[in-house]
C-alpha cells in the first residue's frame, strides 16, 4: 500500500440546463453540491436555483474549490484533489442544418438513436434551437435554419461516442443540393485496437488528409485521447461523403494501405517512472505526447504505473522513445524538500501554498500523514507559458522564500531529481566531469549521477542545503541539458554540407558551437497513401546555447540553397493518377528510397496530390544521375496513361454517377485509375495491362458516355514521361509546382516532418460550379461544409489541441475541420 498522497489540480465544467427542443434527460439533476449552490446564490434567486438543473461532478473529496462562469450556461470549476482520476465533465456541440420546415418530424426521427447513444455511453444528448454552450463562428452566408446537437458527460464517454455522433449528424442532415446526391453516405470501419489508430492516421494525419482530399470524404475517427483510456469496445471510424462509391473506396483504401494483419509490432515499457511524474505528464504533456504519436505513428501510453510504446519497426520505436525522453522526461524535474526534524508541515499548508493560484502547473506528493517534514514537488524545469512563469523554481521560491517565513529558516535540505537519457551521460558530465565539477564550484551543492539496474534512464541528483545555492545550481544544471532539433534535408545534399573530409561541417559546428549529426532515412517504413520524409539531421548543443541551433540550421539551409542552384533537374510528367500509382508502389517496395540511395538523387514527391493536369515531378542530382534515376523511376514505378478528350464537359450533376459507374468500378475490376477534369479523362494503368482489357475499358467508357449524349473525339496513349533536363532558368518556373528549398523556411521543424516538396497553391478541381439554369430553375449550390465543431476534434485535425476550456480552441478546431470537409471548400 502506498504511504503517500499525490495532490494535483482538477478542472471540470458544470452545465446548466437551457431551453431545449429535446433532451434525453439522463444526467440532468437539481443542483445539490453545496459549493455550487453557494456560488450560484450570488447570481440567481433561491427559487430559480431550485428549478435549475445541471450536469456537474464535484467529488466530495475535492478541496480548494474555485468557480467562474464561462458563459451563462457553463461554469468552470477548479479544485485540488488527491485522486489520480483524470475524467471530467465536458461537451461536444454540433450544428445540424435543417433544410425542411417540418422540425417536429425531424426530431421524431432522431429521438430513438439519441436515446440509444445516451444509454450506451451514459451521456446527456440535448437539442437546442439556439447555439447553447458555445459561440458559433459567424458566417454571414449561412442564413438557413440550424439546430444544435450537444453531448454532455464524462470525457472518456464522450471520446468513445464522438465518431458515432458525428456520423449520425451526417446521416440526418442534407447537403443543401436540390438534386441528387442530397444525402451524405456513411461507411463504417472497425479496428481491433486503439493502439493502431496512429498508424491509420499517418504522420501528422497525412493518411487521413490524403484520403479526404482524393476521395472527397470526411473521416470521423476517435481522438488520440482514447489511446490513454482503457476502452473495451472496438474503435469505429466513419467515412462520410456525397458519392457512394468514393466512401466505400476511402474505407477500402485505408484498410488495405495499412494492412495491420501483415505487420509485426514492437513494444517496450519504461517501468521505473515515479507516479508523480506520470501524473504530471498525463495532466500537462498530453499535447506534446499527441504530437509525438502522430510524428512517429506509434503508440505512447502513459498510465499510473508505466509508459508503454508500440511501433511497427524497431527503428521507429527507438526514435519515438528517445524523442519522448528528450522532449518530455528531460523537461520534468522532481524536487524533494526536507525540513528539520523539529519542524512540520500540514496538508493545508501545502494546498494553500502550491495550489492557491488555479493556473499552477504542479503536482505535490506528501506522506500520508497529518504532519510531515518532507514533500516532493513535480514541475517543469522551464516555463512553458509566455504570460506567466510556470517553472518549478517560481513555485518553490514562493513556497520557501514566501511571506509566511516558516519554511526557509527550517530548511534542512533540498534535492532535485532530473531524468536523462543514457546516451547523454557524457554530454551532461563534460570531459572528466568538468561541467558538473564547475557547477559544484560555483555554488555549494552536491551532484550525483545514478542508474540502478531496473532504471531505464540516468538520474542526476542535485543536493543543496540552502535555497539560494540550490537555485543557482539548478539553473546551471538545466543550462547543460541537451537542446536538440531534428529535421529533414535530402540525403543528396548531405555530402556537400559535410564537405571534403568533413571540413565544411567542422567549420559550421565550430562556428556555432553545436554538434551536427547526419543519418539517412531510406529504409524507414512507408505506406501506400503518403510519402514520409523522416528527420535525418540532428543539431544539438547545451540548452544555454539553444539560439545557436537556429543559426546553424540557417547555415545548412544556405548551403543547400547554393547547392540546389548548381544541381540539374530532370523533369517528369506527373498526373494525379500517376501520383496515386507511385505511392502505391512505394508503399510496397520503398522504390523511391532505393533510387535515391543508389543514384544519390532527391525525388521531389509533392506533399499533396497534384490537381493540375500539367504538373511535373522533379529529380535533383547531377546531370548523369538525375537522368538515370528518372528513367529508373519511370520504369519501376510508373504506369502508362491513356488520355481521352470528349466533346463536352462532364456534367457536374452527374459527377457522382461517373464515379459510381466508371471511376471506382474500373479501379476495382481492371486496376485502372481514372481521373478527369472537365472534358479530359485519363486512364493510368500498369504497363503489363492486357490489351484486351484496355479495349474493353474504352468500350465500357464509350457505352456510358453514349447514355450522356457524349462521345470520345480524341484519344492518346502516353508511354514516355521523362521530359529531359532543365536549366537553372526554367527551374524558377517549375518551382511553383515542384517546390524548392526556400519553402523550408516556412515549415514547422518540430511538429511536422520537414519536406521541401510543397505543391503550389492550385484551385480545387472538383469544385461544384454555381449554375443558373435557363427558365428560372433553382440554382445549384455547392456542398455545404460543417463549419462548426467545438469539441476536442475528431482525430485528424492538423493542430491537435487539448484544452479544458473550450473557448480557446474553438477557432483552431473550426478552421481545421473546415479545411478537410469532403476534400473541398
Amino acid at each position: 500500500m502506498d504511504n503517500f498522497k499525490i495532490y494535483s489540480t482538477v478542472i471540470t465544467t458544470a452545465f446548466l440546463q437551457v431551453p431545449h427542443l429535446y433532451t434525453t434527460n439522463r444526467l440532468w439533476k437539481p443542483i445539490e453540491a453545496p459549493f455550487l449552490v453557494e456560488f450560484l446564490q450570488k447570481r440567481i434567486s433561491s427559487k430559480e436555483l431550485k428549478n435549475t438543473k445541471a450536469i456537474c461532478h464535484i467529488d466530495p473529496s475535492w478541496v480548494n474549490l474555485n468557480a467562474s462562469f464561462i458563459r451563462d450556461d457553463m461554469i468552470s470549476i477548479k479544485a485540488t484533489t488527491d485522486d489520480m482520476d483524470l475524467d471530467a465533465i465536458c461537451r461536444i456541440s454540433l450544428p445540424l442544418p435543417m433544410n425542411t420546415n417540418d422540425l417536429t418530424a425531424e426530431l421524431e426521427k432522431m429521438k430513438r438513436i439519441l436515446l440509444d447513444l445516451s444509454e450506451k455511453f451514459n451521456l446527456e444528448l440535448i437539442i437546442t434551437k439556439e447555439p447553447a454552450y458555445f459561440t458559433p463562428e459567424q458566417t454571414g452566408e449561412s442564413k438557413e435554419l440550424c439546430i444544435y446537437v450537444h453531448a454532455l458527460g464524462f470525457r472518456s464517454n464522450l471520446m468513445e461516442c464522438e465518431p458515432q455522433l458525428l456520423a449520425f449528424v451526417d446521416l440526418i442532415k442534407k447537403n443543401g443540393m436540390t438534386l441528387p446526391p442530397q444525402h451524405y453516405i456513411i461507411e463504417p470501419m472497425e479496428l481491433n485496437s486503439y493502439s493502431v489508430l496512429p498508424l491509420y492516421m499517418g504522420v501528422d494525419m497525412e493518411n487521413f488528409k490524403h484520403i479526404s482530399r482524393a476521395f472527397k470524404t470526411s473521416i470521423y475517427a476517435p481522438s488520440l485521447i482514447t489511446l490513454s483510456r482503457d476502452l473495451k469496445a472496438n474503435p469505429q471510424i466513419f467515412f462520410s461523403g456525397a458519392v457512394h462509391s468514393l466512401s466505400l473506396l476511402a474505407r477500402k483504401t485505408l484498410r488495405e494501405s495499412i494492412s495491420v494483419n501483415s505487420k509485426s509490432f514492437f513494444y517496450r515499457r519504461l517501468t521505473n517512472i515515479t507516479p508523480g511524474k506520470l501524473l504530471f505528464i498525463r495532466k500537462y504533456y498530453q499535447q506534446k505526447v499527441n504530437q509525438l504519436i502522430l510524428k512517429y505513428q506509434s503508440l505512447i501510453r502513459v498510465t499510473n504505473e508505466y509508459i508503454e510504446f508500440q511501433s511497427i519497426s524497431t527503428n521507429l520505436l527507438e526514435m519515438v522513445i528517445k524523442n519522448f525522453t528528450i522532449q518530455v522526461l528531460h523537461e520534468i524535474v522532481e524536487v524533494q524538500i526536507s525540513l528539520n526534524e523539529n519542524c512540520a508541515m500540514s496538508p493545508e499548508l501545502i494546498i494553500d501554498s502550491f495550489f492557491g493560484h488555479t493556473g499552477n502547473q504542479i503536482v505535490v506528493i506528501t506522506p500520508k500523514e497529518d504532519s510531515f517534514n518532507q514533500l516532493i514537488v513535480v514541475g517543469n524545469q522551464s516555463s512553458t507559458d509566455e504570460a506567466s512563469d510556470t517553472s518549478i523554481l517560481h513555485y518553490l521560491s514562493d513556497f520557501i522564500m514566501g511571506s509566511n517565513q516558516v519554511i526557509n529558516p527550517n530548511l534542512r535540505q533540498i534535492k532535485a531529481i532530473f531524468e536523462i537519457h543514457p546516451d547523454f551521460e557524457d554530454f551532461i558530465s563534460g570531459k572528466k566531469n568538468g561541467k558538473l565539477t564547475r557547477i559544484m564550484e560555483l555554488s555549494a551543492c552536491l551532484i550525483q549521477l545514478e542508474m540502478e539496474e531496473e532504471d531505464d534512464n540516468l538520474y542526476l541528483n542535485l543536493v543543496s542545503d540552502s535555497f539560494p545555492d540550490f537555485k543557482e545550481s539548478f539553473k546551471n544544471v538545466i543550462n547543460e541539458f541537451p537542446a536538440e532539433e531534428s529535421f529533414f534535408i535530402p540525403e543528396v545534399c548531405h555530402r556537400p554540407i559535410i564537405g571534403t573530409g568533413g571540413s565544411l561541417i567542422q567549420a559550421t559546428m565550430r562556428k556555432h558551437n553545436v554538434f551536427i549529426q547526419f543519418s539517412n532515412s531510406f529504409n524507414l517504413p512507408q505506406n501506400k497513401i503518403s510519402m514520409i520524409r523522416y528527420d535525418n539531421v540532428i543539431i544539438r548543443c547545451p540548452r544555454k546555447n539553444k539560439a545557436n541551433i537556429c543559426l546553424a540550421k540557417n547555415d545548412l539551409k544556405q548551403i543547400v540553397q547554393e547547392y540546389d542552384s548548381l544541381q540539374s533537374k530532370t523533369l517528369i510528367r506527373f498526373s494525379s493518377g500517376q501520383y496515386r500509382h507511385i505511392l502505391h508502389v512505394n508503399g510496397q517496395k520503398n522504390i523511391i528510397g532505393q533510387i535515391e540511395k543508389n543514384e544519390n538523387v532527391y525525388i521531389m514527391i509533392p506533399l499533396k496530390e497534384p490537381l493540375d493536369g500539367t504538373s511535373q515531378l522533379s529529380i535533383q542530382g547531377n546531370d548523369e544521375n538525375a537522368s538515370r534515376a528518372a528513367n529508373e523511376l519511370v520504369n519501376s514505378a510508373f504506369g502508362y496513361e491513356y488520355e481521352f478528350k470528349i466533346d463536352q464537359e462532364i456534367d457536374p450533376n452527374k459527377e457522382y454517377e461517373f464515379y459510381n459507374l466508371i471511376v471506382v468500378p474500373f479501379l476495382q475490376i481492371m486496376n485502372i485509375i481514372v481521373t478527369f477534369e472537365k472534358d479530359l479523362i485519363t486512364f493510368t494503368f500498369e504497363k503489363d495491362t492486357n490489351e484486351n482489357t484496355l479495349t474493353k475499358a474504352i468500350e465500357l467508357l464509350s457505352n456510358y458516355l453514349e447514355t450522356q449524349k457524349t462521345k470520345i473525339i480524341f484519344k492518346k496513349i502516353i508511354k514516355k514521361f521523362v521530359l529531359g533536363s532543365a536549366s537553372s532558368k526554367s527551374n524558377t518556373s517549375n518551382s511553383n509546382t515542384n517546390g524548392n528549398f526556400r519553402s523550408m523556411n516556412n515549415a514547422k521543424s518540430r511538429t511536422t516532418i520537414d519536406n521541401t516538396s510543397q505543391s503550389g497553391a492550385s484551385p480545387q478541381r472538383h469544385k461544384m460550379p454555381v449554375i443558373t439554369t435557363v427558365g428560372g430553375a433553382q440554382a445549384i449550390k455547392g456542398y455545404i461544409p460543417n463549419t462548426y465543431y467545438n469539441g476536442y476534434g475528431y482525430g485528424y485535425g492538423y493542430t491537435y489541441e487539448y484544452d479544458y476550456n473550450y473557448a480557446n480552441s474553438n477557432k483552431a478546431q473550426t478552421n481545421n475541420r473546415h479545411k478537410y470537409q469532403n476534400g473541398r471548400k
Partner: protein
Amino acid sequence: MSPSPSVSPRRTLNNKSSYINNSGGLVLPPTQFNLNQQPVLSFQQKATFDSNQQFFYYPESPTKNLRPRFNSISQVNKGVNEDHYTGGGSSNNNRPSRYTNTMGAANTNVNSHPHHQSVSHLNSKSLKFNQTKEVSSINEIIFPSRTCTKKRYFTKPIDLYGTRSSTSVAPKLTNSPTKSKTNFNIKKCILPRSVVTTYKLPSPVHETIDDISKKIIILLISLKFEKNYHFLQPIQLSTNSKTRISKSLDELCGVQLTSTLRQQKQLQGNSKPVKNLPNSNAKQRAGASVSTNANESFELSFDGKAMDRSDIFRMVDSFSIAISDEDEEDEEEDSFQQRSANNRILPAEILSNEPLK
C-alpha cells in the same frame, strides 16, 4: 522488494577503497566518531551508502591538491570495480549506449570516415545491449520491478558538511568561514541494465472486443441506410446492371469482362456467406434487447413508416431475400434510360422519398 544482491557487495567494496585512500591525504574523522558510526553501519545498508559519501569531501583542502587525489581515486576505482563507473577518464572509456539502434542503417552517416573523429563517442557504441525478443502476447512479458518510489521519494537528507549537530543550521551557515571554499566530488553510481529488450508481438496491444451494444450507428446504417445508398447511387460497371453491387466493392473484383450466365450464378452463390454475417450479429442483438424494448416503437428516417423493434429484426432476417428481389430482368439499356429520365423529371423531394421496390 529486496534490493539486488549484486549491489551490496559493490558498495561495501567501494567503502573499503575510500578508507584506503583516507591515509593518502584525507583528513581522518575522529576515532570516536567512527566508533559511533559502527553500529549504524551494521544495521542498515542505506547508512553505509550515505555515510560513504563523506569520505569524498575535502574540507580545508587547497585547490591545487584536488586534481591528483581526484585522479588517483578514479584510477583505484577503475581497477577495483569493473562494472562500477566512477570518476574521470570517461572520454577514454566510452560506455556502450543501451539505446543504440539494432539496425545500423538509420544512423549510418553518409560520410562516416571523414568526420568519424567528431562523432566517435556515438559511433563507437556497440549494438550488443539491444535485443528483440518474440512473444505471442503482452502477458508473457516479465517487466522489471518498480523501485522508483522507494528510492526517490522521501529519501533522508545527506550530510553535506560532515559533522553536523542537531542544533539549528542557519547561524552556522552564515558564520562558517570555510563555506566559500567548500567543494564536493561528483558521486556516480551507474549500474546500466545489461540488456535492453524490445518485444516483438504479432498483433497490436490492447485489443478490443466486438461490442455490438456500442455499434449503434453501424447498426443503423447497416439495417436502414445501406440499401437506400445502393438504390439512390447504384455502383456497377458502366451500363452493365448485372454487375451492380449490393454490399461491398469486393463484389466488383469477381466481375469477368466477358461474363457468361453460369459465371453469374457462381458469383451469386459465392456472395451468400458474406450476407449471413450481418444476420448473425443482428440475431444476437435481438436476443439481448428485444425482451426489454419489444413494445417500444420509433420512426425510420426515410420512408417514415412506424415500426417497432421486432419488425426491424424480421426485416433483417429477410435481408438476403430482399436483395435477390432486386435482380432486374428488364433490358439493361432501357432500365438505365428510365432511371436517368426519372432523375431529370421528378422533383428531388419525391425521388428521395420513393419507397423501395
